[in-house]
């Protein structure tokens, strides 16, 4: 099976254009402290809009949505004083672009024991782009149960939606061109926190969600 590749992130050229060599002038648009503050703000917004997050369940989309979900859960727990269930939801099998590339390795799906029936599920991801990942996540949720409501929290919204998807909670709105690539780095995965924007380079591209 030489054509198979081990897990990469939700990579892909969804509207990102071909990788072009050239000056990749990456610019850091969010520093670690800003990321922290954005997450704290989102946590408070979730608390406000869900009346104290009583039935909230956070599901992060692998890879980087997962640590983000955990961080949000921690912040909510700090405020409310009780733990918030969180986990991960892999959407590989529900993607609409499966046939365009060799089969990808699966990410981990871990739903807390309470399940999603009747819960307010907040999908958490790092970047919202075309919206196809969220569409896949909705299909995946559908096969897991029936939530009371589904909301979407993203660290970055970079525009260029291809489906009617809108986020409920946004860390930062970042207008981008399709030739640009947005990369979110998180300490749990990449050793540091940063959001970087640059031209499409030879290294892995980050897809939109």
């Amino acid at each position, binding site marked *: *099976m030489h054509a*198979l590749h081990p897990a990469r992130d939700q990579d892909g050229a969804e509207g990102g254009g071909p990788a072009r060599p050239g000056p990749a002038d990456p610019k850091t648009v969010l520093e670690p402290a800003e990321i922290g503050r954005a997450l704290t703000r989102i946590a408070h917004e979730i608390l406000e809009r869900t009346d104290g997050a009583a039935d909230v369940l956070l599901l992060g989309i692998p890879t980087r949505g997962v640590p983000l979900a955990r961080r949000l859960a921690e912040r909510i727990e700090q405020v409310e004083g009780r733990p918030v269930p969180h986990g991960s939801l892999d959407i590989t099998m529900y993607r609409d672009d499966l046939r365009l*590339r*060799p*089969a990808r*390795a*699966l990410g981990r799906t871990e739903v807390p024991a309470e399940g999603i029936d009747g819960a307010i599920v907040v999908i958490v991801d790092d970047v919202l782009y075309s919206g196809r990942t969220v569409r896949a996540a909705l299909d995946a949720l559908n*096969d897991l149960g029936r939530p009371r409501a589904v909301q979407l929290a993203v660290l970055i919204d970079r525009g260029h939606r291809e489906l009617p998807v809108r986020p409920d909670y946004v860390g930062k709105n970042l207008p981008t061109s399709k030739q640009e690539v947005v990369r979110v780095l998180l300490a749990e995965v990449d050793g540091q926190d940063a959001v970087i924007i640059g031209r499409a380079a030879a290294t892995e591209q980050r897809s939109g969600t």
Partner: protein
Amino acid sequence: MNRHLISAADLSRDDALLILDTADELARMADRPIKKLPTLRGRTVVNLFFEDSTRTRISFEAAAKRLSADVINFSAKGSSVAKGESLKDTALTLEAMGADAVVIRHSASGAAHRLAGWVRGTVVNAGDGAHEHPTQALLDAFTIRRKFGRPVGEGLDGLRVTIVGDVLHSRVARSNVLLLTTLGAEVTLVAPPTLLPVAVGSWPCSVGYDFDAVVPKSDVVMMLRVQQERMKAAYFPSVREYSRRYGLDGTRMAQLPEQAIVMHPGPMNRGVEIAAEVADSPRSTIVEQVANGVSVRMAVLYLLLGGAEAQS
């Protein structure tokens, strides 16, 4: 060969780990209310079974259906093949029906190879004669990994696996020797000399005639089915002698290390190669192997069919 799964030798260590890790993730689906994924929607998987095998066929059927593929079952009895249609003509008919994948079980070694030359789709070998049965080896490896708590991403390094029985005629043995060794296990074959291939010394494993000597040093004992007809062809003098020297009974089981497990690809000859008390003991993984078979076969079908067509 990356389009097909015909031999365990087709899989590198990374390939094998990818299948096991994917199977691990898919196994969690068993707890869900909806055990279905949309991934292979619109694909057609044909089960082409020239040999009776309800267990394997149902396993592949369940795997394909859980991925939302359409499944067509073709069994040899009462079919055009029974009327003398050749394998090639059967293959061409499947082509015309638009099979994306053909899972083939056949009594002739090499049937999967030949089929791969006649169809454009993917060929999955579900057992060809005495040659190989790669998905069996994969589900065996998966079962071993789980039982020994090796985490996702890791192989079977250092585990001592002993395979006992009619190696000469066993496709399960051939696939397991190849795959388990690829995953880092130390494999030992135990059998009477008559049931070992002449050139077994060139295989990547150890060989022994004395079962008792190997039992205390085995983390896994895998018993192969022994057909009683072999006695008529003078491979061993009597079932009694075979059982005494190479069967796994309670006494031998008691000599196993504490954590050791007992496996069998099925169907079992209770009382011949394996005693009933062993088959029903907590060490036995025989029932789990069946369940794991569906997850592993789902992983194989997904990885072969779920993405873009691999370049040959």
